[in-house]
């Protein structure tokens, strides 16, 4: 009976579409074949605008649904889709890069460009996944990190053109507005090819579902089937990116709907998911049209579907297999005297801080400041250096706690969702009140971050809660925040610019008091974390072991999450929503041989301080006198190295 929802939603979509067409159908409907010259303007709007739009919504939904279904079946991962695996973001980055750097290439067609970007992103995510047995949550976090990096790289490209304000909004969702039939015909061709490919792959994929060994004994080339299916999924997603842009999370929702409607076998999912996707996107687009028709804001449909992603991921949480990620390798070096190394790091941080206070760049070259200019500059420079160093330390501390707590090497503050919550709080206050004061806005950001933190804490408190659910809940909140922000940006009002300014220029607003508070918080939280060090050493061994050793598991987990969340929230205000420092520093610390929990925390914290000091220097010097956003620069520096590290197979 549940299946009745499909025809019902089809009727709803058609109804909304027809209602939106009302202003133009006074003279009846134009019938194909269309001859532009002989049609009235109302009929032009219908024939070349509204009709292709209705069809393209179905096509895009179907393509994404098919792509998502293929990925979920091949990877046996119910949360895989072109957006969670970073494929769409890769395609989008390639398109933004070409638009900014070589717009003349666009004349050759957008599809090859999008396909190249999508494949590159997929290759990285698959590489990271392959080293970790394609663990579902790990794959999605890798995909999210690739997507975050892609969007920050796109921002940097726009920034390099001097389009400063716009550099932060390049990530808007795709619009389904049409002015002709070209894109529709392209996507019909893509769906045709994709449909044939999926039909051919359906049987081998069902056999694969049994087990790789069985499949092999049945004479199946497992690697080929997997490779072809993933490639097909990638091509379908790239064709959507090339024609309409970023349409988030439809590929995630469609197979989930198909399964909820009773599809079990791969072949069933493969034919039901495109239908579900097509109807889902049509209904979404119908709602967008209705809102626009009622005189509301014009939102790009792709950004609206982004709103589905967060709640959907939370809903899918309990359905995930309870597999722990592959265990940490212990092949990494274990330092005999970690205390010595910690002292070396601490002294090095202080020396670096002192050097950076002294060195400066002027329009005509580099200079070591003399006493007089030092006195002049210190009130400006010292807060920024201390603020950056503290933020780096806080993020690294948070990352180290999360990585140990979840036993997942990809856990990091970037995916915790606290910064996303803070941004939503800020934006919410800005849009709800007429003229908020600075204090009100800071309060809004704090409340937003706290709410996100509470939501995530609730997720870990639930029955049978596993730490990996924490990560996924974080990803869900982050993606919700990202889509809300991109919707607000798409509205393009003056208030959008106010949010942009906050998201980008917050480092320049830092005063001495703020930097001091951040440093004090770093010291306080480090001490707190060290007190909890024993818990952190035992919790990753599993709740049973921990309980046996007399640890209050729930309390300990909540305390850890709160600590990490507080550190992230405070640091985010300075460096923006991402930096990769929180992900990188704990890995570096581990490679330096800090094995014990407390050593690892301290080592990570100090390395975070060093990394952020270096990033701050780079951000100020790279394009002097144009200061780059601190977090953006840090992630551009760190991400390639991080990806190389993660691609290595754990021993």
């Amino acid at each position, binding site marked *: 009976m549940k299946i009745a929802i499909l025809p019902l939603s089809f009727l709803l979509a058609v109804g909304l579409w027809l209602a939106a067409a009302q202003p133009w159908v006074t003279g009846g409907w134009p019938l194909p074949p269309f001859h532009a010259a002989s*049609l009235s303007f109302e009929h032009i709007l219908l024939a*070349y605008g509204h009709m292709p739009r209705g069809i393209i919504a179905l096509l895009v939904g179907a393509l994404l649904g098919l792509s998502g279904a293929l990925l979920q079946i091949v990877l046996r991962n119910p949360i895989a889709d072109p957006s969670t695996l970073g494929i769409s973001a890769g395609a989008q980055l390639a398109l933004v890069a070409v638009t900014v750097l070589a717009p003349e290439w666009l004349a050759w067609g957008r599809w090859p460009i999008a396909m190249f970007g999508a494949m590159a992103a997929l290759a990285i995510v698959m590489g990271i996944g392959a080293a970790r047995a394609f663990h579902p949550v790990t794959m999605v976090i890798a995909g999210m990190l690739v997507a975050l990096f892609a969007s920050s790289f796109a921002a940097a490209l726009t920034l390099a053109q*001097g389009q400063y304000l716009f550099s932060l909004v390049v990530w808007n969702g795709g619009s389904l507005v049409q002015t002709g039939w070209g894109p529709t015909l392209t996507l019909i061709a893509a769906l045709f090819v994709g449909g044939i490919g999926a039909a051919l792959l359906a049987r081998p994929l069902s056999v694969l579902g049994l087990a790789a060994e069985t499949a092999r004994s049945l004479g199946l080339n497992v690697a080929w089937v997997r490779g072809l299916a993933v490639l097909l999924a990638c091509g379908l997603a790239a064709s959507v990116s090339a024609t309409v842009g970023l349409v988030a999370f439809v590929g995630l929702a469609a197979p989930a709907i198909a399964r909820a409607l009773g599809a079990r076998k791969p072949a069933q999912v493969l034919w039901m998911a495109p239908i579900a996707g097509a109807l889902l996107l049509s209904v979404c687009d119908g709602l967008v049209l209705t809102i626009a028709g009622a005189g509301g804001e014009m939102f790009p449909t792709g950004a609206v579907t982004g709103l589905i992603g967060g709640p959907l991921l939370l809903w899918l949480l309990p359905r995930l297999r309870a597999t722990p990620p592959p265990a940490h390798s212990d092949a990494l070096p274990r330092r005999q005297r970690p205390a010595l190394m910690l002292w070396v790091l601490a002294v090095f941080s202080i020396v670096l801080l002192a050097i950076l206070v002294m060195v400066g760049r*002027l329009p005509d070259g580099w200079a070591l*400041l003399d006493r007089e*200019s030092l006195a002049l500059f210190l009130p*400006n420079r010292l807060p920024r250096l201390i603020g950056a160093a503290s933020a780096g330390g806080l993020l690294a501390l948070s990352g180290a706690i999360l990585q140990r707590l979840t036993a997942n090497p990809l856990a990091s503050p970037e995916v915790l969702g606290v910064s996303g919550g803070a941004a939503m709080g800020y934006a919410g206050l800005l849009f709800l009140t007429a003229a908020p004061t600075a204090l009100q806005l800071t309060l809004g950001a704090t409340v937003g971050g706290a709410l996100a933190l509470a939501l995530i804490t609730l997720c870990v408190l639930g029955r049978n809660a596993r730490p990996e659910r924490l990560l996924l809940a974080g990803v869900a909140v982050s993606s919700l925040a990202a889509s809300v922000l991109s919707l607000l940006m*798409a509205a393009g009002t*003056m208030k959008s610019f106010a949010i942009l300014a906050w998201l980008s220029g917050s480092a320049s607003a830092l005063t001495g008091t703020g930097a001091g508070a951040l440093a004090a918080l770093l010291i306080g939280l480090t001490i707190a974390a060290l007190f909890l060090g024993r818990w952190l050493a035992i919790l990753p061994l599993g709740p049973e072991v921990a309980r046996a050793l007399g640890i209050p598991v729930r309390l300990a987990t909540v305390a850890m999450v709160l600590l990490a969340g507080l550190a992230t929230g405070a640091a985010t205000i300075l460096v923006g929503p991402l930096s990769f420092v929180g992900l990188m520093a704990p890995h570096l610390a581990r490679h330096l041989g800090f094995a014990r929990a407390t050593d690892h925390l301290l080592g990570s914290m100090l390395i975070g301080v060093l990394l952020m000091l270096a990033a701050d220097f780079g951000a100020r010097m790279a394009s002097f006198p*144009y200061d780059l956003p601190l977090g953006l620069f840090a992630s551009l520096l760190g991400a390639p190295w991080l990806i190389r590290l993660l691609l290595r197979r754990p021993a």
Partner: protein
Amino acid sequence: MCGALASLALPARADTPRVAAIDWAMLETAMALGIVPVAACELIRFRADAVTPDLPQSVVDLGLRSAPNFELLQLTRPTLILSSPWYGYIEPRLSAIAPVFSQTFYFADKDPWQKSIEALHGLAGQLGIPETANQVEAAALAELAQMRETLAPFRDRPVYITQIGDPRHFRAFGADSMFGAVLSLLGLTNAWDGSTEYSFAAPVPLERLAPKPDARIIAVSGIPAVAEQGLRNSVLWNRLEPVAQGRFATIGNINPFGGLPAGLRFARLLTNALTQGHAG
């Protein structure tokens, strides 16, 4: 270091204010008053996007508007810093360097042209040259009045002021924008009834240009390379009455959120385009 300091920081004389501009509209306003700032922000983009007023090479580029280089700003030893509430969050740090003069140009339900005149007088008062502001305002109004007369034959049709984003979307300038305000000063009707819609991804679909088929369409900043081919082939675009009947023209780059000089630049470029028959 001392050499560098000396070259940037000329001895400050009491009668010549050393002005540093964070905000572009304020930078334009200062230039209109005949005050050349010692430093200003994002000059690479300003010279490309705002084009006029022409800034001498001696003006030091301070970097980004939202995150200016404070050390460089300090080195230029300003006696007055021009900002706007957009950059309110860095005002404490700015005012630690020099007194800050800040005034809104763009605010909900306010006429930006009036605001720019207010800013002109406010700044002139701050600099102790109120008479200059009166002269600048009178000259601007006289020029506008003259253009209004020239444009009298063009009052027959309303005008859409747009900026093309991609082959399917544009940005729209309503009555709450500088362009909209100047348009009404020139005696022309704005064909766009709604408020300004402006963001990176141009938010408004092309079909929203259809409701007034008798209008003219003006595209500020030309047609971007990304949109050129798509627009040429677009059935919808080519069937828009104004486009089909040659009532479409592009004009040069203008700072859409500028001050009085940006408003005047728009008026001049528009008058030029219309009187030369580029838009029917």
